């Protein structure tokens, strides 16, 4: 009777360990193997009495999330201690597509957008692909997952706006050089939306396939409530991963968001 998979079951497991990535991001490893999770997908994390928020999956086992402290739910997740219980549903959303013919990919992460990109790089490496990555942030303290990426990538380029770590400049300038000079089968990207828009446009210009992972205020996580609308598509079900080509067609991409009430914001 129902063609679509239903994945709303709430699961609970114990926190294995937590550690601070930097001044505002905490990584939480959960004693749970989410075998069915693929890079680009997310889970909805439930903190009873506080709320529920979407979190990018950073690893299958142990199930890993890295949480930036931006609100009451993420703050509560960041305070969890090893042995405490955490609840979640997922994996949800459309993952990155890695075609069998791909040999060499470019993985770009801006800020904490690097979390799903590490998961992608790691699984692509396990499948024998060669990965080059670019990560960037405002300042040195914003660079996370650098060591992990070194372990699975052929090359890792780091940029910061103020030059306190890696090359001074933006992810974009480094990425442009790489995209135009070296042969990549696909470019994958997660970070600030204007950066992803610029990369999608640049890839289009150079006829290189590109995939981006977008973020929107989310409530149901399963494509029903419409809160995470992005130009008529649901970020939670149609996305969060879109091909660069599709993303550029979405009227809101790089332009507009909606807050919890649905009010349009810039």
């Amino acid at each position, binding site marked *: *009777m*129902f*063609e*679509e998979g*239903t994945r*709303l*079951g*709430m699961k*609970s497991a114990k926190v294995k360990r937590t550690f601070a990535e930097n001044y505002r991001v905490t990584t939480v490893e959960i004693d749970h193997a989410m075998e069915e999770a693929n890079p680009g997908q997310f889970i*909805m994390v*439930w903190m*009873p*009495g*506080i*709320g*529920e*928020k979407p979190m990018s999956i950073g690893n299958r086992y142990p199930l890993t999330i890295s949480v930036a402290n931006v609100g009451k739910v993420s703050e509560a997740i960041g305070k969890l201690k090893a042995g405490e*219980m955490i*609840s979640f549903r997922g994996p949800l959303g459309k993952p990155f597509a890695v075609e069998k013919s791909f040999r060499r990919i470019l993985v770009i992460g801006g800020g904490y957008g690097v979390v799903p990109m590490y998961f992608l790089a790691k699984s692509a490496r396990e499948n024998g692909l060669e990965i080059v990555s670019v990560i960037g942030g405002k300042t040195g303290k914003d660079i996370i997952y650098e060591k992990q990426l070194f372990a699975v990538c052929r090359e890792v380029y780091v940029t910061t706006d103020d030059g306190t770590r890696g090359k001074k400049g933006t992810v974009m300038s480094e990425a442009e050089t790489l995209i135009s000079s070296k042969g990549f089968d696909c470019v994958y990207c997660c970070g600030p939306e204007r950066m992803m828009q610029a990369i999608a446009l640049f890839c289009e210009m150079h006829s290189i396939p590109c995939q981006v992972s977008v973020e929107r205020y989310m*409530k*149901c*996580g*399963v*494509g*029903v*409530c*419409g*809160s995470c*609308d992005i*130009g*008529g*598509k*649901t970020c939670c*079900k*149609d996305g969060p991963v879109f091909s660069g080509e599709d993303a550029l067609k979405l*009227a*809101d991409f790089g332009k507009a968001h*909606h*807050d*919890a*009430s*649905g*009010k*349009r914001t810039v």
Partner: protein
Amino acid sequence: MSSLDSRFFGKKVKNPLVLASGVLGVTKASLETVCDNGCGIVTTKSLTPEARKGHDGPNIVETECGLLNAMGYPNPGIDEGLKEFAPWKRKDEALIVSIVGKDKAEFGMLAERIEAAGKVLGANAIEAVISCPHTPGYGMMAGQGTPECVCDITSAIKEKTKLPLIIKLSPSVPGEVKLAKSAEDAGADCINMGNSLGPGMKIDLNRKRPILGFGMGGLSGPAIKPIAIRCVYDIYKAIDIPIIGTGGITNGTDAIEMMMAGASYVGVGTAVYFRGPKVFGTIAAEIKDWMEKNGYSKPEKIVGAAHV
């Protein structure tokens, strides 16, 4: 050849399927996607005078054959909302603007705004929800489920607008036939028989807590279909204005059953969860298929067929 072409208050629409309010419909682009995916009539998220963030999450949880939800009417408020949905210019699909107020004065004010937006907005009807089972200050939790209250709200809206008015009732409120009749007597143009049923609750065994952020929520999906069918069947006997039958419709035969019970239009909501965003076109094709196999040329010939 069967055709699903229908009329919705003077507008020709491609089929009698209605996107139920609260499902998708946060933006005009979202409503247009629902139209592109095969729906003939679409309903906006319910608008209130001021912006509402809605309840804390989780907002939705799956149960046996259905969903429990407690959204809490998130919406950007009537002014932002009307700006978002205007102008509605689709040729083959109609727009219903859903409103929800705490009392007749609020409903009247909301209707006045929509009337003022007039042709710029291009709405085909207003739907007033007086039946939410899980939001304090609204619907059931504000005691709006009495014939007097329904009559007052209907009159207050009709005073302010010439647009066709749909009154949305709930299967959770007893006496739905009396409520539908009082809405009709007060000038309503259509009844939407169907909202989520409840409130209900689901408790997580590991956390020993209700899962929904609001604790309780409205049940929707196949689990409530038999109740929605029975409500529509009973109301059809009592009133002459058309009925939108909403509740658990997931496939073409569900829709046919709802029409036989007396619905001229069929609401679809939770089916988006079970069968994906293209479910409207799929259900429309299934209805057409059934009509062709059973020798029906027009949907209106099925409406009320279960009544002798």
